C-alpha cells in the first residue's frame, strides 16, 4: 500500500510539561499563568487550553527543561492558582512536529496506532495551519521519529530538523 506523504519532521529540544486542572473560577487561568511566566521571562513553546465537561478547565504547556524548578515553585506559591487546582508535571518531554500535505486526521490516527504499538506515549497534541505537534517522552523521541519515518513517505533526502541552539532571553546586555 502506498504510504501517505508528509512534508517533513521537526523535533524540539528537551522541554518539560505542566498540566493545570481545576473547576471554573472567576479568574482567567490562562491569563494568570501566562502573566506568571512572563514575570520570569519564560517562553511557552506549546500550549493548549480547554474547558472540559463538568466545567473542568485544563491548561497544558511546555517550556524549556531548565525552567522546570522555577516554574514549579511559582505555580505552587500560595495564590498563584485558584484554590483546588491540581498541578501535574513531566520533567522531560519533547515535541515532534510533522508537516502533512493533507489527510491530517488520517495521519493523526496512523501515528496514534503506531506509537501505541511501540508504547510511545502522547502527552498532548496541537495543530497549526500546516503542522501537527505531538508532545511525547523525550527519552523516546528518536524512536518516535523512526516510527514516523517508516510510516510516511518523506521528501527525498529529508532529515528531521533538530534545533542546535537555544534562545536565552535576558535584560542584561553583556559587553566585551
Amino acid at each position: 500500500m502506498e504510504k501517505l506523504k508528509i512534508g517533513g519532521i521537526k523535533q524540539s529540544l528537551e522541554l518539560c510539561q505542566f498540566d493545570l486542572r481545576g473547576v471554573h473560577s472567576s479568574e482567567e487561568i490562562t491569563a494568570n499563568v501566562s502573566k506568571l511566566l512572563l514575570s520570569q521571562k519564560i517562553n511557552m513553546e506549546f500550549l493548549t487550553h480547554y474547558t472540559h465537561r463538568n466545567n473542568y478547565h485544563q491548561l497544558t504547556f511546555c517550556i524549556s527543561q531548565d525552567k522546570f524548578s522555577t516554574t514549579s515553585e511559582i505555580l505552587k506559591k500560595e495564590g498563584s492558582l485558584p484554590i483546588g487546582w491540581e498541578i501535574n508535571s513531566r520533567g522531560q518531554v519533547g515535541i515532534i512536529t510533522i508537516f502533512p500535505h493533507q489527510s491530517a486526521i488520517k495521519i493523526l490516527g496512523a501515528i496514534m496506532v503506531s506509537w501505541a504499538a511501540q508504547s510511545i506515549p502522547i502527552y498532548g497534541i496541537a495543530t497549526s495551519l500546516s503542522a501537527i505537534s505531538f508532545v511525547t517522552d523525550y527519552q523516546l523521541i528518536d524512536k518516535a521519529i523512526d516510527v514516523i519515518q517508516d510510516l510516511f513517505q518523506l521528501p527525498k533526502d529529508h532529515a528531521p530538523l533538530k534545533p542546535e541552539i537555544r534562545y536565552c532571553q535576558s535584560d542584561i546586555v553583556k559587553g566585551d
Partner: protein
Amino acid sequence: METIAVYWEPRIKTYGFQRITDLALIEFSCPLSNIKPLGEILSQDDLKILRPKFIIAQVSNHEISFIICLPLKESKDFHTSLEKTSSPTPYKYIYPVSIIFFHGPHFGDRYGIANATFSSLSKAGIKILASGCSSASVFLVLAQHDIDKAEETLSETFEVAK
C-alpha cells in the same frame, strides 16, 4: 560559543489576524488504554476527506480528550460516525464557533506572546472556548459572535506588520 543579539519589540509584531468562521467544535474522549482503537477509527479512509481547522488533545486521569473544529457539513458526518462507535465517547458539540489565528516574526523565540494574547482578551471579557499554540502560531476558538471584538482587541495589543 555564545552569540548575543539585542532586539526587543515594544509592541509585539504579527503578520495579521486570520479567521475561519462557521465551524463546529466537537469534543470526544477515550481512555489512554484505548488510544490504538481510536487511532484505527481516525485513520479510516472515509475520514480522509475531513479538513480539520483546529485539533488539540489533552491528557488527564488516564484519559485523552480531543477537541476538533470542522466545517459544519463535515462535523455532522464526523459526529455521526463517532456516535456509531462505542469508543470514543462524544461529549460536546458546539456550533457556530470561529477561529482567529496569527503568527509573527518572533513567535516561538520570545516570551510574553501568550500573556499579551490571553490578558487582553480576558480584560475585554472575551471567553476563549479552546486555544492551541504550537509551531509559533496562536489559534483561538471563540463563539462566533465574539470574533469581531476579539480581532479588535488583539489589533490594539499587537502591531500588525504593514
